[in-house]
């Protein structure tokens, strides 16, 4: 297996982008990544996207994007695994370079979600849960995470305030991210009193509906040295699957798929949770971040809420989480999210994060997740000196 590095990153300003089409978003982010890497060609490409068919009536994205990037006839493959489509696109790019099949791979992700109504977006997103046995009976994604929140509060004594503090922290970080969709600083009270979505979760507990894309360039460490880029090496890669239906998981306070993907990544990297300097995690809903911290081994099970309350996950804390603003502030164009997390890891490891820079950051972890925990990826990146 060859050593692999991330040498280019690109991302556009995310939000409700009426003037931009699905392909505009993807091409824009990809061109930024290609320019950043300084590569003169691309050998292969992966496009993470969950539901362009329902959102934009457009499938067949691999070739569409290769065409508009002027990259045909390279192999171009669309990856779908709900909200971890981007994370898996990155993993496929990593494996293709590591395996020696290609030297330079573009891994991108995109979602153009605001061409449909809010109800329409809820419908499209709900196709990531078990259509016949969950969605048929009326459950939604906020509803699934609300049920995890209720179970977590009941079993571990996690408070409503602690759950809201995830949103407060991520919005605070997002204020420094120029690409973030929302630049707001809601208080715990604002969040607890915001519009109800699925009790106990409110609108300010939920990641938004977003248009956006992100892209990165993967190559060998050898080639990265030739390009004269800082060497940001991919040292761990994990992916796991689990039941689509939340009700079929034995412990409703857990998101087991994250632990399974993390075990694989930690083993490959030969690292432990305490070796990680900072992380980007999939806070699609506030409660998710608390549970993920527990699954990644950053805190004891049931102690996620207390850790956030104590400031352990703040930029200056023991284990800073979502210094980009997370999905909550940055936005969540589902197919792009996993790639944007890698974008942030690279920014941190290049010491380019400004106000949200984690001092002395050498090792970062990205956790991306599909559905209510039916799929996940975990990647660990290290800055080589």
């Amino acid at each position: 297996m060859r050593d692999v590095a991330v040498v280019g990153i690109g991302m556009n300003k995310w939000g409700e982008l009426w003037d931009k089409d699905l392909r505009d978003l993807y091409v824009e982010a990809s061109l930024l990544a290609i320019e950043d890497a300084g590569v003169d060609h691309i050998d292969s490409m992966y496009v993470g996207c969950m539901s362009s068919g329902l959102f934009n009536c457009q499938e067949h994205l691999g070739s569409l994007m290769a065409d508009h990037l002027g990259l045909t006839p390279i192999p171009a493959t669309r990856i779908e695994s709900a909200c971890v489509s981007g994370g898996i696109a990155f993993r496929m790019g990593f494996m293709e370079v590591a395996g020696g099949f290609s030297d330079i791979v573009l891994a991108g992700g995109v979602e153009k979600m605001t061409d449909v109504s809010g109800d329409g977006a809820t419908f499209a997103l709900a196709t990531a849960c078990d259509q016949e046995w969950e969605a048929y009976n009326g459950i939604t994604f906020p509803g699934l995470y609300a049920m995890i929140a209720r179970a977590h509060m009941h079993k571990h004594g996690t408070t409503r305030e602690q759950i809201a503090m995830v949103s407060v922290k991520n919005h605070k970080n997002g204020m420094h991210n120029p690409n973030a969709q929302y630049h707001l600083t809601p208080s715990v009270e604002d969040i607890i009193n915001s519009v109800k979505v699925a009790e106990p979760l409110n609108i300010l507990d939920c990641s938004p509906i977003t248009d956006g894309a992100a892209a990165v360039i993967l190559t060998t460490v050898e080639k990265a040295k030739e390009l004269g880029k800082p060497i940001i090496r991919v040292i761990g890669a994990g992916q796991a699957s689990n039941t689509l239906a939340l009700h079929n998981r034995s412990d409703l306070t857990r998101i087991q798929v994250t632990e399974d993907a993390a075990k694989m990544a930690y083993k490959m990297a030969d690292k432990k949770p305490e070796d990680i300097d900072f992380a980007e995690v999939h806070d699609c809903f506030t409660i998710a971040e608390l549970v993920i911290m527990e699954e990644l081994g950053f805190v004891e099970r049931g102690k996620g809420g207390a850790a956030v309350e104590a400031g352990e996950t703040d930029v200056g804390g023991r284990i800073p989480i979502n210094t980009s603003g997370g999905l909550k502030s940055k936005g969540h164009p589902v197919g792009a999210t996993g790639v944007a997390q890698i974008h942030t890891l690279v920014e941190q490891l290049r010491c380019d994060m400004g106000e949200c820079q984690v001092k002395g950051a050498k090792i970062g972890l990205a956790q991306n997740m599909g559905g209510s925990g039916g799929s996940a990826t975990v990647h660990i990146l290290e800055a080589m000196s």
Partner: protein
Amino acid sequence: MSFESVTPARYARFMPQRYRLEANYCAKCDLHHFPPRQICKCGNKELETRTLPDEGEVLTYTIIHTPGSQFSDERPFAIGIIELATGARITAQIADTPFDEIEIGMRVKIEFRRIQTVGEAGVLAYGYKVVSM
């Protein structure tokens, strides 16, 4: 343009499950699968058809205020994960129960109810909901 998640063929296919909770059972694992599966995780393919009991317990729940388009007229409604006496679990709406009386551990009974009205023709789609006992 809109997509419909319930078509007549898809609806008819699952009537045994939606109408009478027909599951299958792995005797090796003492495990009920709902909906029925072709193979148990243990590898056993000799699974026996069984009907699940019509009583259970609420494991967790939520009140949905922003449903998908096909449930817009129902909002707000309660929905939860119910563990049936045999250990099998379902996600089902909790009907006819004041929201502030719903709690984890509450005993419920399964009832046959209308779930959705589908498409322009207004086809009625039925299934299971639960009510407080």
